């Protein structure tokens, strides 16, 4: 027939695959991750490039504004701020990581127990967590610090970790409850999936992604806690250099109008925190995936 007028029936046509990955890259915190990496590497390898001993008290050069010799200046005790930043970063970031580890461990255990427990038990645990959450953490930290004696890096991490697990455990508990009742876990159970199989193949992947956000935020909170406590004089003593304890000399700095003593550690601190927040927010589940009905 003319012009293709004949019945050919069903003909296989290939639909071009739809690529969705186009816009995924946008919005990833590349800069934040790079800055964090830079800071971490700098803190770890500072033995190589930092010449001055950060705890050497060079009383002849105390309170010197940034210049060519002392890039970031010196503090009122004559210590070189540039080297203090890197060595102090080790302590600050270290406390952040260790206390997050403690908090996460506690949160995972308690959240998982509460999530798997009977309704009654769950209610009791969550009520207790609520009460703990409503106590000002500053008070708790001071009390705990007092119990543990003189503050050191480990005891600080322990204290911060022990006061920071509550909100995370609530999130984990909700997550566990949700996944526990989800279809694919039931399906896996019916197929004969044991507890560990389900835990490893189904719970863990889901759970990790939602907990990652909380973990990152917990690092942030821990760093803030450490610096605040050290600043107020309840945390690390001046001899142990951290970004927080560097700032505990702020009163003298204000008196001597030594802006560099406040601004420089602060800028490092805030940059780290901003980068961590960006990273955390990107891990957070997107609420805006669907489109607004308004």
């Amino acid at each position, binding site marked *: 027939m003319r012009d293709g007028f004949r019945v050919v029936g069903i003909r296989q046509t290939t639909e071009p695959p739809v690529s969705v990955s186009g816009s995924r890259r946008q919005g990833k915190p590349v800069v934040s991750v790079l800055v964090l990496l830079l800071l971490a590497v700098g803190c770890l390898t500072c033995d190589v490039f930092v010449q001055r001993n950060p705890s050497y008290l060079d009383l002849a050069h105390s309170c010197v504004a940034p210049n060519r010799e002392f890039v970031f200046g010196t503090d009122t005790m004559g210590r070189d701020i540039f080297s203090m930043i890197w060595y102090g970063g080790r302590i600050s970031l270290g406390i952040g990581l260790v206390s997050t580890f403690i908090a996460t461990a506690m949160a995972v255990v308690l959240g998982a127990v509460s999530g798997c427990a009977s309704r009654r038990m769950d209610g009791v645990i969550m009520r207790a967590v*609520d*009460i703990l*959450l*409503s*106590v*000002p*953490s*500053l*008070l708790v930290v*001071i*009390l705990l610090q*007092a*119990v543990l*004696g003189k503050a050191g890096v480990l005891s600080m991490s322990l204290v911060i970790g022990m006061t920071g697990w509550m*909100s*995370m455990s*609530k*999130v984990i508990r909700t997550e566990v409850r949700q996944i526990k009742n989800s279809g694919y876990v039931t399906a896996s159970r019916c197929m004969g999936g044991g507890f560990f199989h389900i835990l490893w193949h189904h719970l863990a992947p889901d759970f990790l992604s939602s907990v990652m956000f*909380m973990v990152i*935020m*917990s690092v*942030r*909170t821990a760093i*803030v*806690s450490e*610096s*605040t406590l050290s*600043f*107020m004089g*309840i945390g690390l003593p001046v001899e142990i250099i951290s970004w927080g304890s560097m*700032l505990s000399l*702020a009163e003298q700095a*204000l008196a001597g*109008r030594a*802006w560099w003593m*406040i*601004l420089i550690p*602060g800028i490092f*601190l*805030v940059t780290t*925190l*901003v980068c*961590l*927040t*960006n990273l955390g*927010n990107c891990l957070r589940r997107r*609420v*805006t995936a*669907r*489109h*607004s*009905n*308004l």
Partner: protein
Amino acid sequence: MISKRHLEVLMHKILFLFGSVFVLSVLVFYVSRLAPGDPLVSYYGERAEKMSPEEREWAENKLGLNDSIHVQYIRWLQNAFQGDFGISYKYKMDVTEVIGGRIGNTLILGGIGFVLIFVLALALGILCAWQEDKLADRVICRIGTITSCIPEFWLSLAGILIFATALRWLPSSGAYSIGKENSLADRVWHLILPLSVVVLSHLWYYAYMIRNRLLEEVRAEYVLLARMKGLCRRQVLFGHCLRNAMPAYFSLMALSVPHVLGGTYIVETVFSYPGIGTLTYESARYQDYNLLMLLSLLTGMIVISCNMLAQAVSERIDPRLRMDDRRNYEEVDRI
């Protein structure tokens, strides 16, 4: 319309409040006394370290510290019921007087800060949700994230450095200039910097929360039905979405009381602002037991009653909460 049921509920809540305060008092009392540290130092200062054992015993006897801890607690409880909370070791005054002289300052700072935070956060959150993904929203989000990352104490320091030391626009410490205790203008003048720090450091957390909650609500299907009725966007946002988001916001407000209060304490310390924040931290640090007890109980009571209030309010607004107890707390991740 107060029925018997309402009264019952009210009684129940009051009982719960007293129960929790009692538990809290036991906890604080035992923990603080079991913690290492020398309360005599806060009473006698340096002198305590040079005391002979006899003198020490005499001093401890005088302060009632050498009885067993249970006896001490019962004595404290008995006295407390008669309105006597003991004396502060440091100030050598009745603790109620010590606190009474300062609590006003904290209430002004914390209270105004709290109201400002929540009004501004609500406004900002609504603005961002309304302008979702437009320029205004993006700029506000970016700035907000950064401000929320700055620790309170450092923001205070930076504020002092810029506005007090460098520019000399605002005073750097205290609640009033000496000799001007009664001048309102002077007090406001001193309040500006601490208040801005309290507000700025908390604002974005709550604004972001309300923004996200609203964005979630705006994606619900009931929005379509509401618009189908002929309501305009503004009416839907305020009449439906905001209404549904408010219960969560109220419970968050209640949960945030300790955080704002804690923030106030830090700010008070940096600005040497005479409030109970500085007092709390000193009393805990230097084993000023009686003062610490009363302060923790006060804080605890504020926290618990705010919690209950918020629960009651959200129950009135949101029938879902009455039907089942699926309360949905936002994660609270602050110091």
